């Protein structure tokens, strides 16, 4: 696992939450870092706005759902004794928004979840957000992949850390 500039801990961690079941894994992983040191943890959720709306439009129901995602993460973090800041973004591209936000606040780690999915034909599917973050984030990235359905021998999650 990578660590920030040889300091032994990450000072500021961004959690990229997608509202799915991997969010709990992401918050759980972050709690492990924050529990050990005075790490600032910021949960980020991005509402993707398609081109039929202006970026500033309020898409009915979306902001409430997004707030719920952040609130759930905040409650989970609180249970583990971690203080969590939350940020809600609206953007055209989720991956870019996460990377931009993490860079803007000076994060040294992005933690993101990756549900285990396969394409038609059985090939592993990563979607577009995680590869974008892995490829473009200037800081360390921790990907928490959910367990393969029906295969819980690995303990329910797999980690991989990449650097730019």
């Amino acid at each position, binding site marked *: 696992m990578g660590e920030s500039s040889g300091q032994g801990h990450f000072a500021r961690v961004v959690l990229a939450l997608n509202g799915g079941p991997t969010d709990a894994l992401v918050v759980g992983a972050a709690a492990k870092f924050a529990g050990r040191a005075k790490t600032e943890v910021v949960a980020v959720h991005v*509402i993707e706005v398609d081109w039929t709306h202006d970026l500033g439009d309020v898409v009915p129901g979306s902001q409430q759902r*997004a*707030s*719920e995602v952040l*609130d759930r993460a905040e*409650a989970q973090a609180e249970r583990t004794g971690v203080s969590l800041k*939350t940020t*809600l*973004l*609206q953007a055209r591209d989720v991956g870019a928004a996460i990377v931009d936000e993490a860079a803007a606040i000076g994060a040294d780690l992005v933690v993101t979840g990756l549900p285990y999915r396969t394409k038609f034909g059985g090939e592993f599917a990563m979607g577009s957000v995680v590869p974008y973050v892995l490829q473009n984030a200037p800081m360390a990235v921790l990907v928490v992949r959910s367990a393969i359905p029906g295969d819980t021998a690995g303990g329910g999650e797999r980690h991989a850390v990449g650097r730019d």
Partner: protein
Amino acid sequence: MRVARPQAEYFRYAGPGIIRAKPKASAPTTQVGRAYGRVRRVLIGAPLATEQESEERLSKKKALAIMSSDAISSSAYASEEILNILVLAGAAALSLTLPIAIAISALLAVVAISYRQIGYAYPSGGGAYAVGSANLPKIFALIAAAALLIDYVMTVAVSTSSAIEQIYSAFPPLYPLRVEVSVLAVALILLGNMRGLRESGNIFALPTYIYIGSALFVVASGLLKAFVFHDVAATGYHAANVPTPSGGFEALTILLVLRAFAGGSVALTGTEAIANGVPAFQPPEPRNAARTLLMMAALLAIIFVGVTAVAVSYGILPGGTESVPALVARASVGTGPMFYVFQASAALILILASNTSFNAFPRLAAILAQDDYFPRAFAFRGDRLAFSTGIVVLAVMACVLLVAFDADTAALIPLYSVGVFVSFTISQTGMVRHWWNARGRGWPTRLVTNGIGAVLTGVVAVVVASVKFTAGAWMVVVLVPIIVATMLFIHREYAREAEELKVRDDLVFGQPHRRQRVVVPVPGMTRAVVRAIAFGRTLSPDVRAIYVTDDIEEGERLRERFSRQLPGIPLVIVESPYRQLIGPLVTYLDVMEPDPDAITIVVVPEFVVRHWWERVLHNRTAARLRQVLIGRPNTVVALVPYRKEHALTH
């Protein structure tokens, strides 16, 4: 683009249709409120959420230390109570000290075995109130509860005064400050409990074990010195050593022996704590509780009888500034480090004993409040999850007793133990009924065991109440019925309220069909009045303003402004030649209403001041009006505040 979430600071989504308030939502908004909040935070700590309650289970070792402090600590004053009575009849009577202590220990054994059975039968906690409620007419449960509440207050007062006694026995200069130190000790325990002190902490276990260890050492060393090494100082009681009381010696009568027995029976106080707290044990709860209870009773009996035996063999007499246990310790281990360890641990365990009441009293009061026998404030848990009202009430009552009785243990003791034995008797009787109704395996033996317990504790309750009656037990005998009557009164009031507020389950409520009219009392044409009338218009088309005045010309000028600036709002001018305001207004509402079924909404414009001192500049008519109209049939009072800031910015 960043999306603002202003609500996130105050509330959090907690499920469909549920939001959860964060600490900031309850944060005080005024300067005074914030300052008070800071003081509270320093004194009692930050508020805890309900789910932060710890549910730690106790091992036998920890439970013995934590739940037995009340019972075991009684060994620090029980011997002295026997001696205090027997000394009145001279040296011959003092020879009965040890037999009486042994008889009390036998009673302790019966009570402990009976309570062991309660622990098995009520693994969810078998307090006298719970057992009484389940098996006997409610009144008995209430008597037990009242007796226990008094007993808990007494435990705090007696344990604290006795703890301070141990301290000034070691440091005599503290004697004149005993009341102040006692009250300070109670205040500290109060503060600790308001913080939600975790009684499961090691800090509570350690002093009990140090006391048990040092007391056993003192007893063993004293007995060895007296009986094995034949210490010359161990002379026993001689007529020459026993001072004659001011009124001369009393005769050694059965009554005197009973009084001594009643005095020493304070040793049994606190025996019920383990049976009450079975759910706090690690599984299997009843078995662990039963073993701990028997261990506690054995230790208490050994220390109590042991201290008494050393006191008797060294001819120790009560009445000086030093307590009997202190004198026993001096005789047995000298005035060395062990003496101070024993004294310090005795003081600490006695303070811990009062802490057990700080747990038990609020919990019992909360159960009574949940059953509608106590004001509901007692069931409300404060910022730190503690039943704050019960804790404060207990501390205040204990302090009142300590001040009133000059923190004198001997003076407080007569009030003690009556309540304990009443609650013992009721819970044992309840258990007899329980076994009779259940008739499970081995019921006859259990029934007989609790039956013996009930009879013995009942007899002791009568003995204690009668022999200590004039010395102060009468207060308990008077207080129990008063408390029970108050609880019954509270219950009836709550039942009456509940009946009045009850909504039948089969009713469906549709749109309201009663007419509403709005009445706005106005002091003139002001922004506050305009705002109140605008609000009134949202409630009903029937809005009228009322102006009460003794100056009819002024009224007419106001009517002209109203018709011009608030068209459609009739202004009723009530001329009040005696310059009364509230009376004519309320009477107008009473007599001018054509439709008695209509709901009158009195919309009161209220000017809100910015600073407390500005209140003196206003005559607070709105508040007075609200006070008068609250409770008036078919009337709703709405205050429409208008802040001074609005006036400055509009």
